[in-house]
């Protein structure tokens, strides 16, 4: 279970999160919605442990473990995975090399044996297939020259390989056409399980047609302003974020 209590966080000395409370039980999928600037992406980065996101107050625990004590790689080992809104391009690192280093680093940290090359190749092949990622894409440098859809599929592939228990998806729908969205959503849904919690951050309701959440939280000015069931997302689709400090136009 993820428990966030009274979370305050600064970016460049400006307070973005202002006393956020959130509980995400194990096995559930919660959506985080909200207008631009409400603190959605900041929450994602704080959960993953980005250095320049400074937590000034409050706590985050994952299954009773204090996440704020851990550096980003230790958080990954403990089961936290952030699917980036803008995945990084790294020329000179082959995607396959990167995947293998990540999988083995996480396995090592979890006290498991590193995978042999054939075992790893088999695993990647199996997981990549459903995401329509071919061998050619895996040979390319990490995310370099990838389309928006390819980058997001690659994020979900990493998620599948690292077997996290807490998945944070930051605007995974941004920049995707409807076909790409469906592939990505299918990939995410395939990973839903009783042991795995997910926080799906999105500006638009559209994604939630495909990844149906157990609960929806609306962020406003760095706090959870309202929580409800999936119907809350549909309501926001009609009314927009006006009452939460966003523009009045429907999303």
């Amino acid at each position: 279970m993820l428990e966030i209590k009274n979370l305050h966080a600064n970016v460049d000395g400006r307070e973005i999160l202002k006393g956020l409370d959130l509980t995400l039980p194990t096995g559930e999928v919660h959506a985080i919605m909200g207008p631009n600037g409400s603190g959605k992406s900041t929450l994602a980065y704080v959960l993953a442990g980005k250095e320049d996101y400074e937590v000034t107050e409050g706590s985050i625990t994952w299954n009773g473990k204090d996440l704020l004590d851990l550096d980003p790689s230790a958080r990954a080992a403990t089961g936290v995975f952030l699917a980036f809104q803008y995945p990084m391009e790294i020329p000179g690192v082959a995607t396959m090399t990167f995947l293998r280093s990540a999988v083995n680093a996480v396995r090592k940290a979890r006290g498991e044996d590193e995978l042999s090359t054939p075992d790893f190749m088999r695993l990647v092949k199996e997981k990549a297939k459903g995401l329509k990622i071919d061998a050619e894409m895996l040979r390319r440098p990490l995310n370099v020259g990838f389309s928006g859809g390819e980058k997001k599929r690659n994020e979900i592939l990493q998620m599948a390989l690292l077997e996290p228990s807490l998945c944070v998806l930051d605007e995974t729908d941004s920049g995707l056409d409807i076909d790409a969205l469906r592939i990505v959503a299918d990939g995410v849904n395939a990973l839903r399980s009783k042991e795995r919690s997910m926080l799906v951050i999105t500006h638009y309701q559209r994604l939630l047609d495909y990844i149906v959440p157990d609960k929806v939280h609306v962020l406003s000015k760095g706090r959870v302003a309202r929580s409800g069931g999936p119907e809350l997302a549909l309501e926001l689709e009609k009314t927009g974020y006006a009452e939460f400090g966003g523009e009045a136009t429907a999303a």
Partner: protein
Amino acid sequence: MDLSVQQFRSKAEQDYLDLYTKAEKALPGAGNPFVAALRADAIKAYGRLGLPHRRIEAWKYTDLRARIDEVHPLVTALGIPVSDEALEAALGSAIAAFPAYRIVIVEGELRVDLSDMSGLREAGVEVSSLSHLLEMPPEWLKAALGQVNPREDDAVLALNTALMTGGVALRLPEGLTLGKPIHLVHLDGTGEAASTFTRNVIAAEAGASATVLESYGSLGMTGLQRNAVTEIKIGDKAAINHIKIQREAPETIHLNVWLAALGADARYNGFQLSTGAALARNQVYVAFNGEGSSADISGACLGRDRQHCDTTLVVEHRVPACDSRELFKVVLDDEARGIFQGKVIVSPDAQKTDGKQMAQALLLSETAEFDSKPELEIFADDVVCGHGATSGQIDEDLLFYLESRGLPEPEARAMLIQAFVGEAFEVVDDEALREAFNAASAAWLGVEAG
């Protein structure tokens, strides 16, 4: 009134002259008028030039007069036993195991017992110890030695010509395609602190193609002063990959000159990786003498502590329609200093020249320093020439991305550094060599190769 000017010489400058005077009669080829004249002219030129210092523009960042206090005696040790383990330790396992015709030169002496040249002569390559050939140089050597791309103004080269005592002469006959690379291994440092002057001469005749790897390593640690020159003549339609890896002991002073000249429709791929030595000055002079040729001179330098690594290139486009490319990557930690000077000269006739140059540095500490000095001297009007230089630190966003995937910070950092230098390795065609370079950069970083 006596108007002669009393020239001041530093101790080291005088030491070099004394070294020559003492060794002159015993140097290889001393009895041959051609060689003797070559040496005499060279020491005279050196006497006039002295050791390069910072007031000479090309030596602005690498002041040899200030850096060399005294000159060690010439190497004398011969027939030193060298075990396979020592050779592997000096070169790194990947380079030691690199599949090639292997010619090993220890303290300037070509060591047949350590070399593996079987099949090289049968393939048609003329190969000889340079010392041996200097006693009675054949015509092809006379046409190459000191003639490939002569430089009047280079004291390091002049000293080498005056004192050259070892190295290899290779002649690749017309049309020969050599499937297996030639690996020239240079090992030193077995005895007392010493100076060594090796010279390799490679003559690739029309249409010949080959890969030549030069590796430089230390067997022990005794303040070696190395002066190594390679002259490489590339005939019409010939294609040569010329690669160097230098990983010498931390006390070493490594002075290296490559002189290359291309005929028409020829190709030259030069690449250098430097991780060793206290001071390394790598000079590459390339001249295009025939139309339609291309050259790619690239490399990487990894430095830490107080290492000083200087790469200085001069590419002369003397004829039309030639392309030159340079990409250098420099990684510096601690108080290391990296220098890149790239001069491209396009003469008035050299229309349709295409020249591009890039130097990039990754600084891992606040105290590391990178100096880049591109110089374009263009006297033709229909050319495409460009240069660029960047200097930066590790991108924290990329680092976070890797860490968020479970890679501990040191590993994530190493992966980014390897990716940075790895881009330069792409120019190397030979996959086994690229892997050896990746292994060398991983070893430098203290991680396993990815």
